[in-house]
Each structure stands twice: as C-alpha cells, then as structure tokens.
C-alpha cells in the first residue's frame, strides 16, 4: 500500500521534472528542473519498488541503484552546467 504511494509520488515527480524540462526558458533552468526531478523521482520510485516487492527479492541491487543515482545525479548536472558555462553560455538576466 505505502509502496504504491511511493511509486505514484516518484512517477509524479518524474512527470513534473519532464514538464519543467519542456517548459523552462534557458538551458540552466531546464538543467535544474531535470536534475531535481530525476533524482527525487528515481529515489521515490526505487523506494516504492523495494517497499512493494519486499526485501529478499530485489533489495540489495535496488539500494545500490539508489546510492548510485544520489551520487551521480549531481555529478552529471555539474558536468553539463560547467561545460555550458565554459563554452560561453550565460544565464538569462531577468
């Protein structure tokens, strides 16, 4: 039951991140929306999977996947943002 709630929350957060990725104005804004939505959505979704299907079936690798997402999400966001800034893309003023 609570696993379903977590799954739905993760899917909603992924969808909201996607909408932000589609609707925001500049590259940095889209990067922020996608980064936050992806990490939060993936975390909630995987926690929901663990809660719904039980620990012995899928637990260890899903926890490893959660840790991997929490670790590499900010890293890839930072890599893209730094590359954009070095190549002369500037944030919009207003």
């Amino acid at each position, binding site marked *: 039951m609570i696993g379903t709630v977590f799954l739905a929350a993760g*899917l909603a957060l992924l969808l909201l991140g996607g909408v932000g*990725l589609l609707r925001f104005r500049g590259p940095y804004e889209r990067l922020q929306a*996608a980064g936050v939505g992806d990490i939060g959505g993936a975390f909630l979704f995987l926690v929901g*999977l663990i809660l719904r299907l039980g620990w012995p079936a899928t637990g260890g690798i899903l926890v490893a996947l959660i840790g991997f997402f929490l670790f590499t999400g900010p890293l890839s966001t930072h*890599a*893209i943002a730094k*590359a*954009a800034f070095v190549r002369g893309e500037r944030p919009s003023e207003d």
Partner: protein
Amino acid sequence: MRTAVLVALICTAIPPLGRLWAGPTLWDRLTGAASLNVRITLALAAEAAFAGYGILLDVALAYAVLGFLGTVLVARFAERGQR
C-alpha cells in the same frame, strides 16, 4: 500494476525525448539524454522487479553506469570545443 507502471514511465519519458529532439543548444540535448537514461534505467528496474526476472536488475545497474559515463564524456568533450 506492472503494465500501468510501465505505461506511466513511458509517458514521463516523452518530455525528455522532445527536449532531446528539439533542444536549441547542445546542453539541452545533453540534459534530455541524461533524463531519458534515468527513465530507461527505472523502466528496466521496474520490469525486473515486477516480473521477478532478477538478471535485468544487473542490466539496469550497468545501464545506469554507462549512461552516466556517456553524459560526462560528451559534456567534457564539448567543454574543450570542436577540435
């Protein structure tokens, strides 16, 4: 439940696909690709967990690693310019 989750994940994968298709800059396309990688990994994990097909979990983990490496490699390559 399994079909519903997969269909919902595919629906959430449409906006990154659109941004990958028509991002004005390279950075938008990279963001869309990274976002799409996350959704594909989650779809693999969900399919593995719901179908009880455990080896797909390892595939999902390997896909996550390779997707992250690809994103960082393309970002670092584009940071140095076209040479």
